């Protein structure tokens, strides 16, 4: 059967068809939909783990136990799980293990543009790069086969485009289920990386790489497509598809397995063409290895190492370098004729984070930020997250600020899911080392930014089972934080008082701002409205950066400033703007919101 699947949906399907029995990961764009789609395959146990490292260890434990397993992560999550992935390369496994990293060239929702292909070389394991959804599915099946044949974890690397593009996939079947496993292997020389044993494992890892390189020569998705011999192009992933369209006549070496590389195949291709171009997104990962073989090639000399390498960029460069005839009819887009207002992402109407950023802006405090929707507090008019770098980093950075004896009291913001992911150890550290600073845990009861996944603070698992809910307040108390407040995030006055109380405390303080994400509470009810007779056009409500608040044509008589209005289709009725409005011109309305439910 043929169906249209995204790369991520295809990977989930691939896991099913590969007979994978256990899948774990932590949400992160552009990888999240893989695990979300696993839930349709009830035969497979899947879970959102608390972070990527835990997911990796969990999957290793499953593969040691004889169950085929898969881990999913976004590109920066690889930094978190690599510690554990690297030991599993030394140990090998009892059953297949595949790790999927979804990289983000173009940084649509990431803090950097790291090219995770380097991990394969660093950690010494095989790397597969699918170009479309069909390959995304097939490579999981093939990845498990390689993993079991060579006794190694296998890395599958997609990019945002492969993960989030949809193309036609032919479905296959799931192999017969493996029932019983065990007993658990007591093979310590293999599975315990104590230095004595690990030292004996290293030569095995090196030999394995040689065996894998020989295998790469025969890997069916490493293939030559001969065309015009003047130009030969080596490429992988979705960029291969782009290049195929830009250079319809050229010869191609399409690589599906990009570490270790098929050296003989590359040499054969090089001998068959006059000139070689290596077209790859981000780093010269292939180019450097190809040049190390003594093959003359052009890569990053032409193609930039930053941003997505889109078909139109490849075409433009090809023209400039004389690789394509200029006479060819060129698709030319009209220039956008005027400077357009930007439309950055914003906190949703009814978002519980709005109050915190409104107050942090008002109180002019230095704020270490973290990763999640609340990073939108960085943008104007809030401008209230002054640093952000990695999951859970805010609390450690706060501690460093506190120990630096700044003239002002430092604050940090961290969401509930991020706190569970990597915020607990740095908070423990602050308590132990007598840190000074205020942690605002913005508990909206979901992993919002990536699409509302569960975490230990939620009473439902990915599989839909009811579970125990970890209480953040009790957890923070147990860690030893003396000053802990819980405040309703939608109550502006109480939030302000709570913040002031925490800031006055000379030590580690935690304010838990509790308010459900609008996607969780599904707040409905009438939209708010503005009484234009009362509105003084002071503009304070606009400082809430709410998409529902707009400027209307009516202006204040003296100042001529435009008054505010509320878009009833967008307003979720959270009441925060009514609380901050000085003349009390905003109130609950009666009009329908334009929604049926």
């Amino acid at each position, binding site marked *: 059967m*043929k169906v*249209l699947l995204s790369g991520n949906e295809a990977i989930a399907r691939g896991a099913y068809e590969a007979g994978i029995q256990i899948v774990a990961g932590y949400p992160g*764009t*552009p990888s*999240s*939909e893989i695990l979300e789609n696993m839930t349709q395959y009830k035969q497979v146990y899947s879970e959102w783990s608390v972070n990527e490292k835990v997911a990796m260890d969990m999957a290793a434990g499953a593969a040691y136990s004889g169950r085929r397993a898969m881990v999913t992560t976004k590109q920066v999550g690889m930094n978190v799980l690599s510690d554990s992935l690297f030991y599993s390369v030394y140990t090998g496994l009892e059953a297949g293990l595949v790790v999927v990293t979804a990289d983000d060239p173009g940084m*649509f*929702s990431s803090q950097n543009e790291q090219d995770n292909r380097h991990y394969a070389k660093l950690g010494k394991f095989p790397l597969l790069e699918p170009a*479309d959804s069909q390959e995304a599915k097939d490579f999981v099946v093939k990845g498990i086969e390689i993993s079991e044949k060579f006794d190694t974890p296998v890395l599958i690397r997609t990019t945002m*485009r492969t993960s*989030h*593009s*949809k*193309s*036609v996939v032919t479905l296959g079947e799931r192999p017969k289920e493996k029932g019983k496993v065990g007993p658990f292997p007591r093979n310590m020389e293999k599975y315990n990386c104590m230095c004595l044993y690990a030292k004996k494992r290293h030569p095995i890892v090196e030999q394995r790489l040689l065996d894998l390189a020989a295998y790469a020569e025969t890997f069916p998705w490493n293939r030559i497509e001969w065309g015009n011999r003047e130009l030969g192009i080596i490429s992988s992933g*979705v960029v291969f*598809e*782009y290049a*195929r369209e830009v250079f319809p006549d050229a010869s191609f070496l399409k690589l599906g397995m990009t570490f270790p590389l098929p050296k003989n195949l590359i040499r054969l291709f090089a001998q068959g063409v006059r000139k070689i171009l290596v077209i790859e997104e981000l780093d010269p990962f292939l180019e450097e290895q190809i040049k190390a073989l003594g093959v003359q090639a052009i890569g990053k000399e032409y193609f930039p190492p930053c941003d997505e390498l*889109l*078909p*139109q960029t490849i*075409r433009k460069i090809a023209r400039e370098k004389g690789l394509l005839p200029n006479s060819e009819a*060129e*698709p*030319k*887009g*009209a*220039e*956008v*004729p*005027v400077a*357009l*207002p*930007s*439309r*950055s*992402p*914003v*906190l*949703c109407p009814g978002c519980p984070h709005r109050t915190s950023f409104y107050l942090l802006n008002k109180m002019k405090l230095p704020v270490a930020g973290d990763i999640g*929707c609340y990073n*939108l507090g960085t943008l*104007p*008019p809030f401008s209230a997250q002054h640093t952000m770098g990695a999951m859970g980093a805010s609390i450690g950075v706060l501690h460093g600020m506190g120990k630096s004896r700044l003239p002002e009291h430092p604050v940090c913001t961290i969401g509930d899911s991020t706190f569970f992911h990597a915020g607990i150890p740095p908070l423990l550290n602050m308590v132990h080392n007598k840190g000074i600073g205020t942690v605002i845990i913005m508990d909206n009861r979901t992993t919002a*930014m990536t699409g509302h996944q569960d975490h230990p603070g939620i009473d439902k698992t990915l599989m839909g089972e009811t579970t125990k809910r970890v209480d953040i307040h009790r957890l923070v108390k147990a860690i030893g934080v003396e000053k802990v407040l819980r405040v309703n995030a939608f109550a502006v006055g109480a939030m302000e008082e709570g913040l002031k109380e925490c800031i006055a405390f000379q030590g580690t303080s935690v304010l838990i701002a509790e308010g459900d994400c609008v996607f969780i509470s599904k707040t409905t009810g009438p939209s708010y409205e503005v009484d234009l007779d009362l509105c003084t056009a002071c*503009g304070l409500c*606009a*400082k809430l*950066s709410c*998409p529902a608040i*707009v*400027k209307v044509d009516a202006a204040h008589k003296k100042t001529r400033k435009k008054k505010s209005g509320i*878009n009833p*289709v*967008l307003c979720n009725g959270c009441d925060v703007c009514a609380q901050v409005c000085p003349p009390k011109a905003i109130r609950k309305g009666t009009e*329908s919101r*334009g*929604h*049926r439910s």
Partner: protein
Amino acid sequence: MMKKDLAFLISGVGGQGTVLASDILSDVGILSGYDVKKSDILGLAVRGGAVVSHVRWAGKVHTPVLEEGSADYLIGFEWLETLRRISYVHPCGMVLVNDCRMDPISVSSGEAEYPDREKILRLLEKTAKNVVVIPGLQTALDLKEARVLNIVMMGALSGLLETDPKIWEEVMQRRVPKRFLDLNREAYRRGRALV
């Protein structure tokens, strides 16, 4: 005999339902006998930000993303977001624009000015041969459900394509939750009647 290759760009604001619209459009392409690829931007970009979906129908599609100047149809769910993607439209392409203005924060905070409706329309008409203004939001609000805007827009597009309405019906049955199916059917019908 293969039909003409088609490239579509759907542009809008996160939350307007552009992804479902592009899924439906892709399925219709497949059932109409094309190879199809599509590409969406998901994640951070959807939080009220500018969103765009690429859809291509052809005998064989390699790349899921359009090059500038190649879209046969630009389907804009909002005035500003339609103008923002004008560079993608082929000189002989067509623009469908939903008559809807949503002020971004840069405008409501007074930092930037929203170009007026007539100006945007003029600029669109300067690039594309055919610009059709669709009262999509109003049609959806007439049905008391702003969220069916995407189906109204797809209905309007269907009126311009040589596709079988039965295929659209089949795809909606597949993609739309059952309890909303009648409402969406009506949205599709009204949208189709707009062009």
